[in-house]
């Protein structure tokens, strides 16, 4: 143990000796890890947010499609669907996106009759229960400088200004869930959007047995060919594919930097400088064994890569969870230019750490130790001779 600690001390002293070169490596390497970690963390955070949203999502959503376009669905479809075996509650839903010209942001409007559409908690106040009342998300409140006890002015479908009293403000473990949300009574939203009587945006369908959801979806499609039943697992898969595709795109863009880093690692892996070879030869001549030399190189590689890894990871965590992924959000979120600011819920898993570590620390340590191995197993006289 004492010997290992002494070799570690020697390794750290060797790194300190070449501190400017090593600092440059840590900066470049740390930046590479920070970008890579940001992409992975953000993609996973987005997936996490999507899963949060879908916790309270209906088992099945039935939309109407006209000429391939999402159209309003007749409310009386609900009666027939409710009659299918295994189906519980079928409710019309009223919701939609609203472009707010004042803030140039998109808000999500949701109508309710009883409780909130998802597992939402109110930060302050209550849910709307009387006409012309609404509850707003944190982002909307910030963007429109409003809050409980204040008003929210919106433009209705016929171009008229409508004033709502803000009676509640949301909080949630997922800020993306409520950030752009405004909740109204169904009747208010129907009026605001000008939704014709007897129509809804879609129908939410409760299915008692999770295994029967796709069967019920198929039956709905058979009864109403003009509908498009969407199961919760389909939505999850879609989110997954979208975020995977976007992170893949980012990684592709980042590929040039990754390639440069790989070339650097390859260059290190395929050879060491004459000075490094001579140093290994001297160490061996002075009584260091092959194992000692490789241990020294291992500690050097581990110190550099772990330092870079930690700095890169911290930078990525700050970037994603404190700065709201300001550099990557436009790419991953897609339409985020019109989206209010929000913060991801901080989370990191052992699996993410393992993947990042495996992709970054392991190759660097290997590329440090591998070329030294050749010099270390050669007789010191031959190594010093060059």
């Amino acid at each position, binding site marked *: 143990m004492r010997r290992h600690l002494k*070799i570690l001390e020697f390794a750290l002293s060797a790194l300190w000796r070449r501190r400017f070169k090593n600092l440059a490596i840590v900066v470049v390497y740390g930046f590479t890890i920070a970008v890579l970690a940001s992409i992975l963390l953000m993609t996973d955070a987005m997936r996490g947010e999507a899963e949060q949203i879908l916790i309270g999502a209906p088992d099945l959503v039935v939309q109407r499609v006209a000429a391939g376009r999402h159209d309003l669905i007749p409310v009386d479809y609900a009666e027939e669907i409710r009659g299918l075996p295994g189906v519980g509650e079928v409710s019309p839903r009223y919701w939609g996106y609203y472009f707010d010209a004042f803030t140039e942001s998109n808000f999500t409007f949701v109508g309710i009759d009883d409780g909130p559409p998802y597992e939402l908690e109110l930060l302050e106040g209550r849910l709307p229960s009387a006409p012309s009342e609404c509850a707003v998300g944190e982002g909307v409140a910030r963007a429109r400088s409003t809050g409980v006890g204040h008003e929210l002015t919106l433009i209705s479908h016929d171009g008229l200004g409508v004033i709502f009293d803000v009676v509640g403000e949301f909080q949630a473990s997922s800020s993306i869930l409520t950030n752009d949300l405004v909740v109204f009574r169904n009747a208010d939203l129907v009026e605001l959007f000008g939704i014709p009587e007897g129509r809804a945006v879609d129908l939410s369908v409760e299915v008692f047995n999770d295994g029967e959801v796709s069967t019920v979806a198929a039956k709905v499609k058979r009864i109403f060919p003009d509908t498009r039943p969407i199961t919760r697992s389909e939505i999850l898969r879609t989110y997954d594919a979208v975020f995977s595709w976007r992170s893949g795109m980012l990684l592709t863009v980042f590929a040039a930097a990754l390639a440069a880093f790989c070339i650097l690692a390859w260059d290190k892996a395929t050879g060491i400088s004459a000075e490094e070879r001579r140093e290994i030869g*001297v160490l*061996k*001549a*002075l*009584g*260091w064994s092959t194992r000692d030399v490789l241990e020294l190189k291992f500690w050097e590689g581990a110190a550099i890569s772990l330092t870079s890894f930690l700095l890169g990871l911290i930078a990525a965590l700050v970037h994603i969870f404190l700065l709201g992924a300001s550099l990557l959000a436009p790419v991953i979120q897609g339409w985020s230019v019109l989206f209010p600011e929000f913060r991801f819920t901080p989370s990191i898993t052992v699996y993410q750490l393992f993947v990042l570590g495996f992709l970054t620390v392991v190759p660097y340590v290997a590329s440090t130790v591998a070329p030294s191995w050749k010099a270390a197993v050669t*007789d010191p006289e031959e190594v010093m001779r060059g």
Partner: protein
Amino acid sequence: MTAGHERFIATDGVSKTYNPRRADPVRAVDTVTMHVDRGEVLVLEGPSGSGKTSLLSLIGCMSRPTAGRIVVDGRDVAKLAESELTMERRQRFGFIFQQFHLVADLPVIENVLVPLYPTELSLREMRRRAHAALGRFALDAKASRKVRTLSGGEQQRVAIARALVNDPQVVVADEPTAHLDRRLAEELLAILEDIHRDGRTVVIATHDPRIFDHPIVDRVLEMRDGRIVGERRR
């Protein structure tokens, strides 16, 4: 065998060929049979390319022969595993290189400590030994100075202190006066004499007449083209 001396290192038909599988192999040492007695000061003398450094490396367990046997203290080191050969180097030999091979940006004390890092000695004991070795060459006061701030002669003495810090039985020196002026060369010879007085065996490869004509030298082996072509006793 030198009268009254115990044979310590012996080579028997030792050869060393570099690049043996290439079209232009170099036979640096060619079937050399020689010996070094315990406590002897032996000089390998010859022009550049005569094979003296290669033979010195073989004797010092720094390389393995292509053919032949090398026996150190009764043990055939040519057949030893890498780890055992390392232990031989660590425990028996101290090396003084032609170009010192010090780490210029490290303090003097750290350079002297290098051979002790892979041992089980405590850091306190390592430092005690290093200070003792430096003290012997009046360098203790400069222990914390960077090597590059020292003069050539001081650097030479740091290299010698490093060679002695393991308390080796044999000190092997390759062209130790190659970069030294007359005064520093005299100083070095005085140090070698001191080392010899400790009872250590000293083997030196050189083509400097100041060394092989010096009174401390017991024997000179003349080398040409990888072979020993002459021997002078004093």
